[in-house]
């Protein structure tokens, strides 16, 4: 073992990095970007689920419980009409609403109270805080009104989507199906297109009668074939083996996945223009994939993000794809839903932009 020889290797390595500014930037800038984003996302988010309260109680108890709920830190409440509740769940402005029925106070006299709890149900993480806040509010309200009485609480819970068996995997599964396909197709495309460049065959293609659009389209179709097979595999595994909840049309899920795969292929071709080596291509993963992963609503719903980040989420293709997949799988959306039309339309729009971008930048790096 020679210290000098080891030192030679160490020194050479550092010399190489001195010339590779991009790798250095990635090494030192990317962690700050990613951690900063994550911190802002979590600290800056309005995390308390929005709950609507409809108090129809003719007695005093409903108002007391509603007041207790309003002071609860786990949820943020608004007063609504019970007839508006379902619409507000559907448009996403409420995670749940609670109705205190007209005979609520008299129920309490009889020893058993049954508030109606209507849950949106697609986000399992919001259910527990709502039920817990209700529980605490009832206990404090009842103990102040009728101390010492034994009282049974039997909330009647109904779910707009999903159901009691709907778990976290059901919520994340829908989004991850899209993410997995997007990520893998992107990596495979960017590396193989870069190979085409580095092995010199791209120069040959450009010196042939092939037009740039033909190259991009040919690539797109080739990888789409692979991506679609992968999409089928992922979908079958998710639905049949993992038994991820699905209330929608399987063909529609597949269609959204296919759109994502095509978007990923074109993003890969486009970004391969900005990488000289496979090493640099791999560096696009933390820059392109991680922020999309954090901001697309997979982990944190977009509506709970701080406002500036919501704007950023709004320009990322994955946001729309994730939303579309959840609409279909969790909420059973079909193409007549305006929100799904928007999601599919935006992803398709991204594809058109990326195809044009990929074709126009193709020449730049060969000449």
């Amino acid at each position, binding site marked *: 073992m020679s210290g000098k020889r080891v030192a030679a290797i160490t020194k050479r390595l550092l010399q190489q990095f001195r010339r590779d500014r991009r790798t250095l930037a990635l090494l030192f800038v990317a962690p700050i970007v990613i951690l900063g984003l994550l911190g802002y996302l979590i600290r800056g988010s309005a995390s308390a689920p929005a709950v609507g309260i409809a108090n129809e109680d003719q007695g005093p108890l409903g108002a007391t419980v509603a007041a207790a709920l309003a002071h609860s830190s786990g949820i943020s409440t608004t007063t609504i009409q019970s007839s508006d509740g379902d619409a507000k769940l559907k448009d996403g402005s409420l995670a749940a609403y609670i109705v205190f029925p007209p005979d609520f106070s008299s129920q309490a006299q009889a020893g058993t109270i049954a508030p109606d709890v209507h849950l949106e149900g697609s986000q399992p993480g919001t259910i527990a805080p709502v039920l817990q806040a209700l529980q605490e509010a009832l206990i404090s309200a009842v103990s102040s009104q009728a101390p010492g009485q034994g009282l049974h609480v039997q909330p009647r819970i109904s779910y707009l989507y999903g159901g009691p068996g709907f778990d976290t995997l059901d919520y994340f599964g829908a989004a991850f199906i899209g993410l997995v396909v997007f990520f893998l197709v992107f990596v495979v495309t960017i590396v193989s297109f870069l190979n085409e460049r580095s*092995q*010199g*065959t791209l*120069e*040959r*293609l*450009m*010196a*042939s*009668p*092939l*037009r740039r659009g033909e190259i991009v389209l040919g690539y797109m179709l080739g990888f789409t074939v692979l991506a679609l097979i992968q999409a089928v595999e992922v979908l079958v595994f998710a639905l049949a083996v993992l038994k991820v909840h699905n209330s929608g049309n399987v063909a529609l899920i597949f269609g959204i996945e296919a759109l994502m795969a095509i978007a990923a292929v074109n993003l890969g071709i486009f970004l391969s223009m900005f990488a000289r080596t496979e090493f640099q291509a791999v560096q696009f993963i933390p820059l392109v994939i991680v922020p999309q992963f954090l901001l697309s609503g997979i982990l944190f719903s977009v509506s709970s993000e701080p406002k500036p980040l919501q704007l950023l989420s709004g320009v990322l293709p994955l946001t729309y794809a994730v939303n579309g997949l959840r609409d279909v799988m969790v909420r059973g959306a079909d193409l007549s839903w305006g929100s799904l039309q928007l999601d599919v339309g935006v992803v398709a729009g991204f594809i058109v932009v990326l195809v044009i971008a990929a074709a126009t930048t193709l020449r730049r790096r*060969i*000449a």
Partner: protein
Amino acid sequence: MSDSWAVDVEDVSKNFGDVKALDGVTLRVRQGEIYGLLGPNGSGKTTLIRMFVGLVAPNAGTVTVLGQRMPNVAMLSHVGYMTQAAALYPGLSVEENVRFFAAINGTEGGVKAALEFVKLYDRRASVVSTLSGGMRQRLSLACALVHKPQLLLLDEPTVGVDPQLRVELWDGFKEMADAGTTIIVSSHVMDEAERCQRLGLILFGKLLTEGTPGEIRSRAGRPTLEEAFLSLSQSRA
């Protein structure tokens, strides 16, 4: 009259940043001629060849290939281009590579003839990543000529090819030229230069001198092309 020129380069200049890759080059190559581009590394040979296929656009001057002003994608199916490094798909077999390049030039036939020309027909099922450097070079040549182009551009085609096969390939080039194919070769190898009908010496992006090998030898007053080349280069450097 311009129809008789396979390649017509008129006062072409090209800069890459501060570097003058080509500086006022005028050069014409006849149909059916074998024209050799000679010059040291970095003299501008490859830049010139890449202009013939429209990969590089000149800053000044015009390039006309087979009667068409370049760049012109449509006429590229009549041009074969063999790049300096053997640009092939390592995961495909020998035959699959040639078939691909035939297909993108709009033909299907000629695969067998091209592989026989470079003596790789017996190895047609081999995957490229298993081939030696010389074999890859030959396969790259087969890919450049499979569609029977009217103009064949060869950037140092016989690097790594053994002397015996080199002679056979040159006999093949001669046959193609006799049948009307124009061939432009860049090379360092002087015995290859001897086999060209005309030579152009390029140095620092300028066309230093042009003529048959015999003319160039006598102009420099040297017995061999190699010495003539060195003395002409030094007199201008």
